[in-house]
């Protein structure tokens, strides 16, 4: 039975940094299905290496490195189907993520849900289709009877609207 205090700290840290790990994998792999698969493997590795975890150490740096290795392994196993950011950029993204202000996952998701509610029906449908269900932009454009470029533009606009809305909501929450 592991030391309960160390175990609890590990649980808390892993929960707190889940978002960062997923974001990092998404940033590297740019494929949300793949990132989830690798994330799962990454969690298994983190747990299998629980014994190496030392209380008070930089957990997120350690976890991001493991995520980086798992992503690299994944890409190698895929026989270079797709290009990959170089090592320097991977490290820069790690540094950026480690420093970045990151809202708790529940907090961020709650704010996102509120902001999505405020979108128009069409916008909501579009992000559900492209970002939720993972339909490719070209297919979505066919379904919606629009050009792919117009769908890209709409998605960018919606992302910017949502980012602004979430930031305001989180700032408001902080002031309370």
């Amino acid at each position: 039975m592991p030391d309960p205090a160390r175990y609890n700290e590990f649980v808390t840290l892993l929960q707190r940094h889940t978002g960062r790990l997923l974001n990092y994998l998404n940033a590297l792999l740019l494929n949300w299905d793949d990132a989830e698969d690798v994330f799962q493997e990454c969690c298994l590795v983190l747990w299998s290496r629980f014994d190496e975890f030392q209380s008070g150490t930089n957990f997120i740096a350690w976890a991001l490195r493991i995520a980086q290795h798992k992503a690299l392994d994944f890409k190698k196993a895929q026989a270079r189907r797709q290009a990959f950011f170089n090592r320097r950029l991977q490290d820069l993204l790690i540094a950026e993520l480690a420093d970045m202000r990151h809202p708790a996952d529940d907090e961020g998701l709650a704010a996102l849900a509120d902001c999505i509610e405020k979108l128009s029906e069409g916008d909501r449908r579009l992000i559900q289709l492209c970002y939720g269900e993972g339909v490719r932009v070209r297919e979505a454009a066919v379904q919606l009877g629009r050009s792919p470029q117009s769908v890209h533009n709409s998605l960018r606009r919606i992302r910017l609207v949502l980012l602004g809305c979430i930031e305001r909501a989180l700032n408001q929450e902080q002031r309370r």
Partner: protein
Amino acid sequence: MNQEQTKLPDDFWPLLDAACDGELSSTQMAELETILERSPLARRIFLDHIRLRTQIRLWWKGERSRAAGLSKITSGPDTSPPAPIETASAEMQLPASAPPAQVLPDYDLPWEKPRPKVVIETSPPTPIPWYSVNSPIGLPLIAYTLGALIMLIAIGIGAVVQITHNYEIATGQAATSEDESGGSGGGGGGLSGALATDEKAKPKKQEEAPVVGHISGMVSCRWADPSLKPIAPRIRQGAKFALASGLMEITYTTGAKVILQGPCTYEVESPSGGYLTLGKLTARVASGQWPAASAKSPATNLKSAIRNHKSEISKSPNLQISKFAIRTPTAIITDLGTEFGVEVDEDRNTFSHVFQGHVEVRLAGDVSGEAGRVIVLGANQSARVERSGEEGKPRVMKLDASEAAAYAAKFARRLHEPPKVLDLLDIVAGGDGTGNRRERGIDPSSGLTDSTFKPEHRRSSFRFLPIGWHRLIDGVFVPDGRAGSLQLDSAGHTYDGFPETSGKVFGGIWARAAELRSEEHNQDAQYWIYVMGEGKQFMPEGRGLLCLHANAGITFSLEAIRKTFFGVRPARFRATAGLADAGRFEPRDFGLADFWIFVDGRLEFQRQHIRPSDGPFSIDLELAAGDKFLTIVCSDGGNGYFSDWFVLGDPILEMVPSKEGGNLDPAKP
């Protein structure tokens, strides 16, 4: 944001769009990479958008799961870690109980029927009947009725749970079982707990079912229903998995393990079992799962355990929840301390096979223990539950030994699949051939490992050096005809046809990664493994290079490989070989080398006087089932060993199933 946009190159935004929308080409990726490397602002915006994209995905999964009535594990960002196997202990702070609204359906539905998915239909508006929840009369009436029902069921179940609780106290498990019982009975225990204390009556997170285990391994999993794809190792009660192929191992908090074998649909119903709708699984229940049995001597505990078990079931069907049980549409297979496999076919017939210990097979819905409807299976026995007759009534029957043996072979009992390819670079770098280890080597003059490439001239010891630290590598040597007959492997096979060489080797046998890091591009010819350049012509598969500078030989143990990977054997040795060009440092074609391949001391391949200008050539050597050693040798071509930069790109052993059978039997090494 407008201000930020002005600081960034114009093409950043279209590239970001392509990245977020999953349509980034290789060229675009290189362009985005350049911008991101240069601009911290671009990186921050990129990460913001990626984070948003991730969150939208999670949000949508949550929405879909809620619509389908699934537990949270399949939906939101519940990526908390797996519970420890030992126990669902207090510090984990499991939710005290499941909400009554989720509890009721478990008891309303017949035990043998799978719970239907909630389907949200967008039907046109219809008049509201008086009994509807939307009716002003119906809502209070239904609420009152439900409340009364909950109270009645809770009182009944509370008594049952009390019995279970006392039973567990008596066997020393009381400390942890109270939390789990909240989940084990589909919420019954939780409900009684809710009635017992005010604190528990106020569930903190009603939407979260208790954690009952975690995913402890996966092999080549593909999902039949992507919405059920787990994104966290932790498993909550009610989690459902639909595997299209592959293996997934679930470790319950009780220590029981279940290996799902795709295609398979399985729901984790409680800490002590699940519902197999279709497909195969193997369950292994840890010792101590059944305290009544383990408390006595091994000689007597089985009969008494079965007797106790039957007596408990006859007292109350709900007590089955304290045993590990797999439900199927037609049967309930209850563990009696064992390892067993269960399969449900498309006609919903159930097959069960016992590998170790005993199980009880009971017709679904049969809680009375009628003779003839319950059978106990021992090791190597199988039973089939199928519907027969005009009424389609299920019946359970034992299968004969030959049928049982046939069923046994269908189940995966351990979570590993035999490799189709073994990577010799991984082996040289210290791995077992299934990984991607690189950038390590072996000194053929000493048999020791090189953790960094050592550009030094090493002298021959004129003998075969067995490798004791790696079971798949038999040994190494420096070939030199002056030594006469040279031993090639530990079986004592020798070869006396090597020419006289310089008797020296430069550096070691080195497993080089496919990619060159920028700092390794230097002008020092001693680091030939990097100075030679990318070497892509030698590695069409991009695996990496086995750098074998003359004079060096290495022998791999095919026999040890067969023993390590039961069920498969090396069938071919494949690689792309050639001499890398040292023309930048030496006169053109100065390098000259000979290459040799031996199997069990037999010369199978030889090519002499290889020059860089010859270019790469393919090696494809068939290996027989009984071959024991594969020896690869590079010697200088008679003009000294300088610039003999011999490489083997993508060196692999192709593995095929051996006659011994599959990999499903863990009893074999």
